[in-house]
């Protein structure tokens, strides 16, 4: 390396040093350096490539040292000189008026033609336009196509010659007078009263003659009318006079009088015509409604407000105000009938005697009243029992005397710390029946624990399960008695005899009424049950009891009519029985024996001729109470059946109904078979079927219209049997849009002939 350094020329070293020095110098040196660089850059390149770079923002300065407007920073709009500005100067000189006009003209915007689209684009536009036009044009076939597709039957060729013979009626209905003579005659006939219409026996003129009155009659009638008119005017005058009377007392009296009259009428009607009486009552009741709408007795009037201010000091004012409010209340109060009344009012519907226990009309079942008012009575008894319990508790409290205070304390303590207080526990033990029964009730409603309402359940089963024999009834009664005795024993253990007797009485009453067997409910989760062991105070207890009862009520109501589980069991039983093989009895009476009535088949014969059925094979659902497994399913059968609903059908019911409806003549009349079996398309061999033509389009449109008219006419005939069968078209129900379209089409096509005929008429 050192050798190399030595070999390097001294000048180069010098230069390097120079550069270093310049770099350290000021801006002057920098400029120089730039120049140098430029010069170097220039050496090898074309001059044109040179790009000048401006270092400072300087507004362009032209050679006259004038600043060009628009290049500066200021808003150019303000400073730009416009032609109009220059013209202002010219305007003063009339000599140059022509010039100014020319400038103005030049300034007017002249519309220029747009540049034509390029060819492919233009073609595209043209094609699109043509396509749209054709689309619209071809859509006129829509209706025809639709009709033909939906048609029950199509007979090709479509344009069949019309073989229908035109009746005179058709002809006359279509006939239009063309010649002047025809025109004249039709004019004469049209408005004439002496022309008889088809559906009437008499001409209008004749009818008029028949119905017209004689002169005498007419005079009488006129008199009558005049009289009634005069009476009416008197009445009106009187009413006007009365209305003008300002006396309030008079009006009040009037009103009272009216009211009395109304009531009298009502009373009278009540006896003769209860229906009208009811209407009358409603009318009277309207007064209340009107009163409710007004603010008359609401204390909102001017007077009332004044009274309110006064009432602070004036007793009279206070009274009058109160009085007014009372009136308002009285008037607006809804007149409620008590329940007992309503029950009494509605006479019990005498039910037909039947064996249906649900209807309750049979002798074996309980009287209707008991069933229908069961829930109400249940409520009543529950309320009663509550009262009794209360009284019992009170009595115990009274007997305990001093403990009364403790009780209240105990209640408070129990709320805070339930189990710690001994006294409350004692109290509950003493008057404990209600609470105990409570918890039991809870269980009975929601779970199938058989502990509690045995009485209830017994009664209920009586209500739900049909008792076929008297023995059943007796047996049940015994059972109930037993359970009652058990129950009483239990309660003896728990409480004093008095209370027990009272409570059991109540429960007996309750028992008579309940309808639902709690064991037949589907068991629900017990999470909802408030079955806490925490001793509850009387007040809280009552509330809960209410809730419970509520729940019981709702459940009872929900399951009032159905007994799902029992039904299911019954169903399963039937299925099992049906599937089990049965003995086959091949005995023939009188065969090999003496015949005649009252003879029994001998045992020997029975044993010989009755083929005993083998024991039923095990069923898969034997041990599953809640399932029925159908074992009759046949795979071979399944293969022959339709799996999915086939396409045009929307519902299985529809499909099944088509399968069910027979089509052969064995099951339905021959005519029906023919109708059903007609093919959808009929063609005739050897007949050329030409493509669709406009004529078909017209004829289908016509056909549609005709059929529509027919249908409409039929509708009219069906709907009204009025004598005026001829109705205006506007009266008929609106036709659906398709039909209207068809009509439009038809009109379009037959446009020309129609105008022609019009012209002829004009001529």
């Amino acid at each position, binding site marked *: 390396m050192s050798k190399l350094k030595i070999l390097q020329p001294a000048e180069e070293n010098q230069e390097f040093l120079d550069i270093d020095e310049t770099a350290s110098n000021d801006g002057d040196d920098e400029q120089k350096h730039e120049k140098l660089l430029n010069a170097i850059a220039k050496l090898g390149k074309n001059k044109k490539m040179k790009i000048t770079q401006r270092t400072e923002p300087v507004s362009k300065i032209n050679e006259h040292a004038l600043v060009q407007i628009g290049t500066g920073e200021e808003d150019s709009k303000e400073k730009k000189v416009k032609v109009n500005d220059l013209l202002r100067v010219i305007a003063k000189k009339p000599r140059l008026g022509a010039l100014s006009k020319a400038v103005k003209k030049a300034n007017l915007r002249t519309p220029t033609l747009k540049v034509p689209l390029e060819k492919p684009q233009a073609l595209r536009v043209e094609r699109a336009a043509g396509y749209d*036009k054709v689309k619209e044009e*071809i859509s006129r076939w829509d209706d025809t196509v639709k009709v033909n597709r939906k048609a029950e039957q199509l007979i090709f060729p*479509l344009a069949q010659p019309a073989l229908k013979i035109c009746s005179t009626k058709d002809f006359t209905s279509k006939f239009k007078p063309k010649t002047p003579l025809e025109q004249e005659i039709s004019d004469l006939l049209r408005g004439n009263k002496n022309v008889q219409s088809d559906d009437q026996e008499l001409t209008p003129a004749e009818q008029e003659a028949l119905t017209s009155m004689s002169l005498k009659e007419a005079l009488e009638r006129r008199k009558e009318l005049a009289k009634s008119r005069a009476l009416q005017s008197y009445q009106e005058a009187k009413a006007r006079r009365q209305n003008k009377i300002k006396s309030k007392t008079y009006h009040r009296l009037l009103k009272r009088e009216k009211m009395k009259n109304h009531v009298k009428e009502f009373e009278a009607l009540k006896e003769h015509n209860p229906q009208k009486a009811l209407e009358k009552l409603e009318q009277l009741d309207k007064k209340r409604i009107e009163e409710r709408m007004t603010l008359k007795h609401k204390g909102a009037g001017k007077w009332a407000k004044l009274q309110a201010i006064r009432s602070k000091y004036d007793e009279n004012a206070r009274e009058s105000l109160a009085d007014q409010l009372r009136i308002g209340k009285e008037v607006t109060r809804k007149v409620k009938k008590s329940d007992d009344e309503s029950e009494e009012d509605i006479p019990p519907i005498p039910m037909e005697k039947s064996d249906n226990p649900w209807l309750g009309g049979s002798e074996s079942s309980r009287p209707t009243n008991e069933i229908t008012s069961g829930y109400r009575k249940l409520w009543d008894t529950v309320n009663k029992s509550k009262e009794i319990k209360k009284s019992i508790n009170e009595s115990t409290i009274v007997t305990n005397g001093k403990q009364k205070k403790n009780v209240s304390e105990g209640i408070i303590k129990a709320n805070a710390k339930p189990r710690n207080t001994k006294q409350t526990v004692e109290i509950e033990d003493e008057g404990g029946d209600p609470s105990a029964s409570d918890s039991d009730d809870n269980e009975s409603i929601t779970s199938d624990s058989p502990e509690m309402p045995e009485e209830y359940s017994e009664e209920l089963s009586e209500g739900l399960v049909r008792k076929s024999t008297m023995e059943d009834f007796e047996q049940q009664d015994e059972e109930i008695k037993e359970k009652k005795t058990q129950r009483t024993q239990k309660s003896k253990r728990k409480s004093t005899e008095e209370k027990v007797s009272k409570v059991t009485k109540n429960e007996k009453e309750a028992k008579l009424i309940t309808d639902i067997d709690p064991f037949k409910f589907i068991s629900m989760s017990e999470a909802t049950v408030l079955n806490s062991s925490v001793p509850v105070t009387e007040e809280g207890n009552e509330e809960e009891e209410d809730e419970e009862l509520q729940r019981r009520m709702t459940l009872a109501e929900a399951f009032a009519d159905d007994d799902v589980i029992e039904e299911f069991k019954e169903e399963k039983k039937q299925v099992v029985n049906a599937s089990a093989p049965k003995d086959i009895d091949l005995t023939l009476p009188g065969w090999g024996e003496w015949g005649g009535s009252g003879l029994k088949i001998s045992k020997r014969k029975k044993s010989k001729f009755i083929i005993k059925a083998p024991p039923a094979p095990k069923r898969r659902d034997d041990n599953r109470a809640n399932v029925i497994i159908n074992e009759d399913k046949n795979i071979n059968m399944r293969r022959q*059946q339709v799996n999915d609903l086939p396409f045009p059908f929307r519902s299985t019911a529809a499909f099944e109904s088509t399968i069910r409806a*027979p089509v052969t003549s*064995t099951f339905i009349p021959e005519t029906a078979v023919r109708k059903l079996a007609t093919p959808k398309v009929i063609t005739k*061999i050897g007949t050329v079927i030409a*493509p669709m033509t406009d004529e078909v389009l017209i004829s289908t449109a016509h056909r549609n219209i005709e059929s529509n008219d027919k249908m409409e006419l039929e509708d009219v005939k069906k709907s009204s049997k009025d004598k005026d069968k001829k109705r205006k078209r506007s009266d008929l129900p609106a036709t659906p849009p398709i039909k209207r379209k068809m009509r439009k089409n038809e009109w379009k096509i037959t446009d020309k002939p129609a105008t022609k005929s019009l012209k002829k008429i004009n001529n």
Partner: protein
Amino acid sequence: MDKDMLKKQIENMKFQATMERWPLSKSIAAFQSLTMDIFNDDSKMKVRMLVRNPDDYMRETKRDIHKLPRNYDPTLHPLEAPREYTRALNAVKLERVFALPFIGSLDGHRDGLSCLGKNPDHLSWLFSGACDGELKLWDVAKRRVLYTVQAHDGFVRAVAYSQESSTLYTVGDDKLIKQWKCDAEDGSDLKAPVNTILTSGMLTGISPHRSKPVLATCGEACHLWEKSRAQPIKTFQWGVDSLQSIKFNQVEENILAACGSDRSIILYDMRESVPLRKVVLKMRSNSICWNPMEAFIFTAANEDYNLYTFDMRNLTSPLNVHSDHVSAVIDVDYSPTGKEFVSASYDKTVRLYDARQAHSRDIYHTKRMQRLTCAAWSLDDRFIYSGSDEMNIRIWKARAAEKLGVVKPRERTALQVNAKLVEKFVHHPAIKKIQRHRHVPKHVYNARNELRSGRIAARRKDYNVRTHTKRQLPVIPEKTKAIVSEQQ
């Protein structure tokens, strides 16, 4: 053992036995008491008399059929449906037994068929053009040739009869449009063309206007010709590709459709100066046919083994895709009722489709029939003509099991009832199976299986792609899959 039946029988017997034991004297006594009751009762008691009116059971003439009094009470016929089911089964079997669609073949051409033409003025006439330029006029009823003429050099590309001028037009590979007169009953007018137009480009199809003396030809472009002029009156060109089939709409007479080799179907209006619209499919359409009863419906036979039915007003998606062919569909023709159409395919079969169904209702094939080139539905809706490579024209029945001879009224009702029965029970598997079953040639059977497996694979792949990609893939309905674009 049927328990119920047995039980019933036993009960019956018991009843009879008890009746036997019921002494006559007792019954007489019972009747007496009853009558006494009736007479004692004040209320009206109607005693119905047995009436036997000879009009009800006697025939008026000896030739009348015997009256069969029937009780139509459904409770008396508990087995209605099963009995009808059995009848339907028999009916559908019979239908298959009688399904013999092939009527006969017309042979005489010396080269493969290229086109067929119907004559609305003569139902029994059929024109056929062959690949060697021969044109034949057939009397189908007698199954013989009426006239033969060497019409063109090379293929006769298309034959079309114009009812307006009652002349026949043919185009051939020699770039000529020839007009033939055919008034004579024996077809001897075909001796020489009435008019010949020499055109500049090649021609592949021709279609005359229904009521005006205008012709449309296709080839390099769509040309409209007037009968008396040597130059086209109008030329429609859209793109540079050639067209292989063109058809005038027979109902809305000014509209045309053509299919081009750029896989497009183009619509024209004769009155416009430019085409109307173009729809590009994934593969080329070979032929096109308008529905003669529904103005805006047309069907195109496509190379992708399917036929596509379009509503002219909505080309973005076809109304229906008719599949079942296992090779390119070459030709399609509508039945004159517009309810069905026939398609001729390169897979050597003819298929019949219900115009609004996706799958064919029938397939016709014979052992010797080769690739089909053309098919036509006769104008009385009874027959189908098919022309194929092996120089034969075949005549088929349009409905395979139909009886062609005289059908007496009772037979006709029986047939109709049978058809109704089949229609009623057609959704039941056994009947459906019999009704749908067709014997197909082995190559068709195999190809169908192959295609099916391909379809399943594609579907599986699509499913896999869908389940394993994060971004939502657009669901393209099966119908629109074949459409590439609709161009304005």
